[in-house]
C-alpha cells in the first residue's frame, strides 16, 4: 500500500477570515460578508447556523449580533494566491481547485522537507505567519480522503490519515462529507437509513444503484472504499470553464435570469476565447430559494465561443429547467458551465444554405458577425480594461444585489 503523501489545503472561512484579518476589531465576532445575501460567514457566525447563500434577514434572525461587512474583494485573489503559493515551495505537484483550496502531492519530497505531516505543519505555520490566515490541511493516500481529512481538521487544524486505519477513519464519518454527495443525495440516502460512509460502503450494489443510478453509485462506492485513482495534476488544462451568480431570493422570471445569464455568458465566453477554446457542451445550474439545485445541459453540433450564442443557449436551458419545476417561484443562483472544450483558433464559416437551424451555428452569418464583434471587444478590453466596452444589455441589466467583486471571484470552475 502506498503511503499518505497527498495534502489537501483549504483556507478556513476564507472571505470572512480575510475581513477579520484586515480589521482586527472583527476577530472573534460573528461576521458575514454580503448584505442581502450571506456570501460567506465566519466560524463564530456558523456556530449560530448562519450559512453561505442564506438571505440576510434569516441570518440576522439566527444570530442577532451578526455583523455584516461589504467585503474587500480586491484583496481576496491576492491573498488566496499568496496562501496557495506556499505549497509551491514544497512540491511542483500542486493542483489548485479554487481560490482557497488546492491539492499537493509531496511524494519524493521527504528527504528535503521531512514527512508529509511535517510538511503540512510547516505549510500551516507559514500561511499563518506570512499571509495571516488560518488554513486546514488533510493528509492521506488519496485525493478524496485528503479532502475529507481537511474538512475534519477544520477549523485551523491538521489531520493525517494513516493508510493502515484509513477505512476505520472514513467509515465513521457522515456521507455528506463525500465528494458528490450534496443535499439531494444525502436526503435520499437518509431515507434508506444511510448516514455514515461505512453504511454506504456496506450497502448492497443493487439497492445503491436503484437509489442513485449506475454512474453515481459506482463512483460513491469506490470512494467509500477509498478507491480513488486520481492523481494530483499540476498545470492541468481546463476541462471546463464556468461562472455562477448568486441572486439572493428573486422571482423565477425571465426578467431576472436573462440579464444574469448574459452577464455570466460574457464572462465565460471571453475566458473561452482568451484560451482559444470553443465549447460543445453548455450546462446551466439553477438553485431555488430552498437551496435545492437542478442542472440542464445540451451538447451542440458545433462548439461555440460567442457571448450572444452562449447566452441564448443558456437562457433556453434555464427556461426549460424552470418549466420542469413550475412550483418553484424563486431562484437564488444561476450558473453556466461549458465543457467538451476544443481548440479553435479561427472560425470556419458555413455555406449560406439558410437551413433554419443557424441560430446555434457559430459559422452562420449571424454567428460570424458575433464572433467578429466579440473579438474586437476582447482586444479593446485587453488594452483598456474590462469596463472599457461591453454589451449594453449587460451594462444596463445588471442585478445589484451582489457586488461585482464577488461575481469575479465566484467564477470558480464548476
Amino acid at each position: 500500500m502506498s503511503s499518505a503523501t497527498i495534502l489537501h489545503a483549504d483556507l478556513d472561512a476564507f472571505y470572512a477570515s480575510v475581513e477579520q484579518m484586515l480589521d482586527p476589531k472583527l476577530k472573534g465576532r460573528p461576521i458575514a460578508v454580503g448584505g442581502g445575501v450571506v456570501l460567506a460567514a465566519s466560524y463564530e457566525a456558523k456556530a449560530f447556523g448562519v450559512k453561505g447563500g442564506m438571505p440576510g434577514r434569516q441570518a440576522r434572525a439566527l444570530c442577532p449580533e451578526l455583523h455584516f461587512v461589504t467585503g474587500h474583494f480586491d484583496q481576496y485573489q491576492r491573498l488566496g494566491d499568496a496562501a496557495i503559493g506556499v505549497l509551491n515551495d514544497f512540491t511542483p505537484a500542486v493542483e489548485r481547485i479554487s481560490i482557497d483550496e488546492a491539492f499537493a502531492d509531496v511524494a519524493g519530497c521527504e528527504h528535503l522537507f521531512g514527512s508529509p505531516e511535517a510538511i503540512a505543519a510547516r505549510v500551516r505555520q507559514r500561511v499563518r505567519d506570512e499571509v495571516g490566515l488560518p488554513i486546514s490541511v488533510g493528509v492521506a493516500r488519496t485525493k478524496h480522503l485528503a479532502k475529507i481529512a481537511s474538512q475534519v481538521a477544520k477549523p485551523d487544524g491538521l489531520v493525517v490519515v494513516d493508510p493502515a486505519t484509513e477505512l476505520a477513519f472514513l467509515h465513521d464519518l457522515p456521507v455528506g462529507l463525500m465528494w458528490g454527495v450534496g443535499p439531494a443525495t444525502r436526503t435520499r440516502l437518509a431515507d434508506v437509513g444511510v448516514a455514515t460512509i461505512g453504511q454506504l460502503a456496506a450497502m448492497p450494489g443493487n439497492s445503491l444503484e436503484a437509489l442513485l443510478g449506475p454512474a453515481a453509485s459506482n463512483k460513491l462506492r469506490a470512494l467509500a472504499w477509498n478507491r480513488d485513482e486520481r492523481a494530483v495534476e499540476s498545470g492541468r488544462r481546463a476541462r471546463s470553464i464556468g461562472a455562477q451568480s448568486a441572486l439572493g431570493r428573486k422571482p423565477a422570471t425571465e426578467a431576472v435570469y436573462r440579464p444574469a445569464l448574459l452577464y455570466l455568458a460574457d464572462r465565460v465566453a471571453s475566458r473561452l476565447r482568451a484560451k482559444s477554446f470553443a465549447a460543445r457542451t453548455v450546462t446551466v445550474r439553477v438553485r431555488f430559494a430552498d437551496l435545492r439545485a437542478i442542472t440542464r445541459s445540451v451538447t451542440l453540433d458545433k462548439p461555440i465561443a460567442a457571448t450572444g450564442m452562449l447566452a441564448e443557449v443558456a437562457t433556453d436551458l434555464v427556461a426549460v429547467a424552470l418549466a420542469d419545476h413550475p412550483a418553484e417561484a424563486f431562484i437564488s443562483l444561476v450558473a453556466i458551465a461549458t465543457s467538451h472544450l476544443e481548440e479553435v483558433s479561427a472560425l470556419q464559416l458555413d455555406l449560406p444554405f439558410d437551413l433554419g437551424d443557424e441560430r446555434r451555428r457559430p459559422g452562420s452569418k449571424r454567428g460570424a458577425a458575433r464572433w467578429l464583434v466579440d473579438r474586437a471587444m476582447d482586444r479593446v478590453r485587453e488594452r483598456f480594461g474590462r469596463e472599457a466596452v461591453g454589451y449594453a444589455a449587460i451594462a444596463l441589466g445588471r442585478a445589484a444585489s451582489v457586488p461585482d467583486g464577488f461575481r469575479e471571484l465566484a467564477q470558480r470552475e464548476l
Partner: protein
Amino acid sequence: MRATLERSNLLKALNHVHRVVERRNTIPILSNVLLRAEDGRLRLKATDLDLEVTETVPAEVRAAGGTTVPAYTLYDIVRKLPDGAEVALDTDAEGRTLTVQSGRSHFSLQILPEADFPDLTAGEFAVRFTLAAAQFRALMERTQFAISTEETRYYLNGIYLHIVASGDDKLLRAVATDGHRLAQAQIAAPAGSEAMPGVIVPRKTVGELQKLLESPDAEVTVEVSDTKIRVTEGDIVLTSKLIDGTFPDYVRVIPRGNDKVLKVDRGAFSEAVDRVSTIASERGRAVKLALGEGRMVLTVNNPDSGSATEELGVDFAAEPIEIGFNSKYLLDIGAQLRSGTAVFKLADPGSPTLIQDDDNPDALYVLMPMRV
C-alpha cells in the same frame, strides 16, 4: 440444407456481405448471415435493416434449404481455412446447428431460423438504368468526402443523386455537403435514368458500394424507388433504404460571379499546404493564402509552436486578396481533383470559393473560408 463449395468462393462472398453486419446488435438475428442453397448455388445475405447485400456463388447442393448463422464467426472460420479447401455446410436434423466441415476441421454453429430473417427487397422499383461500374464509382468517390456526419442534419448524411437538365441533355449528378464545403460530380444521364426522382443515398451505403464495385469494366444496374435503391453487379445485389428528407437547394451556394481567378499547379499546392500545416496542432487549422500578382504566400500561425510560410508561383492577375481556409479541406479537395492545374475562383474572404480542374467542368468543389 446440405451444400459443398470452394473455400475461395465462400470467402469472397462472405467478405462482401459480412461488412454490413453491425458488430453490436440488440436483435440477435441481425448478427447472422442468411445462407440459402438451391439450384446449384449458395446465396448469402446480410442486413442491418437499412442496407442489405446478397451474393450468389456456385455450390454443389445435395439438399436445398436455408438457415442463418453468426456472420463474423463464419467469416473468421472460412478465413482461417487453408487455400484451395472444400467446405461442406450441413444443418442437423433438429434444425439447431450448422456443421462446417473442411478437411479435418469441424465446427458446429448455432443457428436461427431463416423465416425470421428480415427482407428489404420487397417493393417496386420504378426507375432502372445501366452504367459502367467505373462511372458510378467515380460519382461517389469524388463527392463522398464532403458527406456530413452531423446527426441533426440527417438529410446531409448522404449523396444526393438526381437528374438535371443541361440544354437539351440530361445529366446524372451527385452532390454532397457538410455545410462547410460542397462537392459535385456529374455524367451524361444513362438511358432510362431521366425520370429518376432525386434521392439521398446514405453514407454507409456509399461506402459499401465503393467496396463492392471492384471491377472497373463491369456493368452496374441501378434501380430506384421513392424509398429504396438497388444496385446489381454480376452476382452481387445491394439494396438500401434512402434518407427520408429533402436535400437543400444547393445551387444557391455555388458562386457564379467570382472574378478573382487563380491557377495553380495542383501537386505543388497540395504539397505546400501539407508542409505549412505541419506546424498546426489542432485538426484543420487555418492556412492563410495571400494572393498577389503572380504569387501566393501560404502561412500557418500556431501561437503554441511557431509559424510556417511558403511561397508559390501562380497564375493570378486580379486585385490582391488574403483568405483563410481549413488546411484539411484544401487537402481533401486537392486529392479529388484530377488535372495538373487547379482553378480557384474567389470573391472575398467571407464568401464561397469555387475550385475546379482546369480541363474538366464535370466536377466542382465549393469551399467556405475561415475567418482568421
